[in-house]
């Protein structure tokens, strides 16, 4: 079993990158691999509460983040300084917070690191 770290760096609706990152994470988790998520930079916006995107334009795919444990993903990290840069918005889940040093340790401790 390999340990995957997926680093989410894009805001949810600017492009399909955020959705693709989530789909990848769920697919890998379905193969019983260990998956951790790290939200960083604009990526932290994916976890914001009450997104209410226009349903005609976007599917609110980020709702899946509230059920991550059912999908087999339990380790969710958020870059502390990124969150501070967005004035610490309310998040839809309770992540573990990571500073720069902890992030570098995270990257070292995973076999495969994917930047999305």
């Amino acid at each position: 079993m390999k340990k995957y770290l997926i680093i989410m760096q894009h805001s949810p609706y600017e492009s399909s990158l955020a959705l693709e990152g989530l789909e990848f994470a769920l697919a890998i988790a379905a193969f019983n691999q260990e998956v951790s998520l790290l939200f960083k930079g604009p990526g932290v916006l994916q976890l914001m509460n009450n997104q209410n995107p226009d349903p005609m334009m976007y599917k609110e795919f980020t709702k899946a983040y509230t059920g991550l444990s059912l999908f087999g993903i339990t380790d969710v990290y958020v870059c502390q300084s990124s969150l501070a840069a967005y004035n610490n918005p309310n998040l839809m889940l309770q992540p573990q917070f990571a500073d720069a040093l902890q992030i570098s340790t995270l990257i070292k401790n995973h076999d495969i690191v994917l930047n999305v």
Partner: protein
Amino acid sequence: MDIKLTSEGFLANISDWTPEVAEYLAQQQDIKLTTEHWEVINLMREFYFKYNASPSIRTLVNAVKQQYGEDKGNSIYLHKLFPNKAAVQANLIAGLPKPIRCI
């Protein structure tokens, strides 16, 4: 029954679903719906609207286990109810779109 289906037998329009439509879709799959089937179908729909995603078989097992316990939260039980790719077949009868992920 006058409803639109995709070429793979999924409901073309998610809002067309009613319990009667589910009976019809199940019939197309050679399944006679029982209380046990309904438990899973209702859970599928709840899951889909809550998380905006279709569960994979593994995820469905976890969700059923959480709701109805170990006896039902396993893939053998689910495959007995929905013999042809449980997660996909239950998804179809629950009137939800074909899952993007195939697993």
